[in-house]
């Protein structure tokens, strides 16, 4: 049941400790490492991190849950994030949303049964000049069109 960092992450954690006046600052970097390791953040990982930072598991959850990019249950292998804020909206983000929802047969906020895809609607991605913007995992798809997204999704295994 216990959870721990991979060797690589443990090393990275130790190095980061030297870069901040107090170890409290490591909350976000460590949560990122957990999420990169597992794809999401489980309770055991939060218990593990709490020990490392001399906090209670509840402290860690209260911090982590403030930030929308952390997931507390598994999500699809490919996380499709659709920007819905004004500049994207003015350039057709609603069409993009309809297209993706139809193609995958799920609504924003849901995952496909095989856990390959999750769709989320998100706020401004800082890509307003190349709207509409979609972000799949870490990659921005800028000036996106249904055809472009089809091509990309076709290739995802």
């Amino acid at each position: 049941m216990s959870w721990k960092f991979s060797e690589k992450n443990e090393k990275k954690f130790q190095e980061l400790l030297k870069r901040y006046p107090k170890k409290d600052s490591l909350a976000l970097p460590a949560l990122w490492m957990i999420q990169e390791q597992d794809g999401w953040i489980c309770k055991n990982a939060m218990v593990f991190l709490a020990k490392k930072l001399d906090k209670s598991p509840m402290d860690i959850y209260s911090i982590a849950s403030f930030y929308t990019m952390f997931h507390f249950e598994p999500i699809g292998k490919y996380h499709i994030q659709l920007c819905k804020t004004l500049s994207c909206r003015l350039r057709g983000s609603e069409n993009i949303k309809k297209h993706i929802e139809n193609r995958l047969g799920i609504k924003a906020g849901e995952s496909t049964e095989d856990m390959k895809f999750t769709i989320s609607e998100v706020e401004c991605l800082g890509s307003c000049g190349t709207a509409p913007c979609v972000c799949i995992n870490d990659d921005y798809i800028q000036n996106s069109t249904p055809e472009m997204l089809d091509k990309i999704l076709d290739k995802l295994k």
Partner: protein
Amino acid sequence: MIKKIESKNFEIENAHSLHVAKQHGRYSSLERLFSMSSEEVLDEVDKSGLRGKGGGGAPTGGKWRLIPNPSDKPTYLIVNADESEPGTFKDRQILEYDPHLLLEGIICSSYAIKAHHAYIYIRGEYAFWAKRLQEAIDEAYSEGIIGKTILGHDYELDITLHRGAGAYICGEKSALVESLEGKRGHPRLKPQQKEPEWFFGCPSVVNNVETISSVPYIIKEGFVAYRAYGTEKSPGTMLFGMSGHIQNPGVYEIQFGESMSEFIDKIGGGVKDGKKLKAIIPGGSSTHVLRADEIEDITLDYESLRAHGSSLGTGGMILMDETVFMPDVVKNLFEFYHHESCGQCTPCREGVGWSDKLMGKILDGNGTKKDLDTLIDLSFILNGKTICVFAPSVAYIIDSYISKFKDEFYSLVK
């Protein structure tokens, strides 16, 4: 119209790599920097009139002088790369095309405030840009540009990149510091008098990416050269963005004081598909909307926009053509603010949610005149009663859109 100071290297191939960056002038301000004392650097930046480019336009030199000198505690420079204000996408251009410009600016600015560690807080979604910036930092370390000495000059400086994880409010400077301390990103109560930010109780400065990236030019060429651009009160240049219904969306560097409508027509290529302009949000979604007929005399500087009842903000303009229905825009913005409220203050947490719900009801055709009145009353509740200026921004949205496009809102209610 275009004046390339910060964006000078944007179109040079591979200018993000140290080798190419150096060939094009990066780190060439350091020689003059280290011939000056910290005090002289502060003076130079003061005299340049440089103003913060993160939205507020506060004089940068004045802000740096809030750091006690001498300070009995370590001081820190914290760079704000959270860039989440809708309509704003300028800082990422620097991170993508010329990250060494930012690092050079960090060296100059840290030296001025005697900081030996600088943190860059970058929004979590900017994974690509974080990677690019980390590569630049690693290169700078390995070439002895940062670390124990700066290119042999006796000054120690570390730079650490810190990733956020999706929270607009962490762009607010005190929330950013809270987040950097490993907490929820809750803005802090503002002190009575001007003070530095406090990072674990140590005096610190928070500056925007573009502000810091403006410093090397000032150090290298001197404040007079910087003041040759812009206006008396808004000196220099800024990266202005255009998005929405514009023919050529993008980020363009121009000097302050240029005509807004000329900028839109000449550089932006006018409204998309030859349609008519209806409205424009001048500097990120938190600034007051302007009707097309209001912009004729506006010049792009802090004073002119203030005089026209709005503000320059981040310089990220959102243009809307004649087909746009303003109540839809307001609903879209309310959803953003509803989602992003940090939840500390009751008027904000509840008030923004109510505004969003009321607007939804009105748009669904179930609203009454009384609902619109309630919405206008909410603006009073949201303004001036909260810890940070997030809630007042929502009040400005209610006030400016409803008063300027009254008919559209009243056409929806019984």
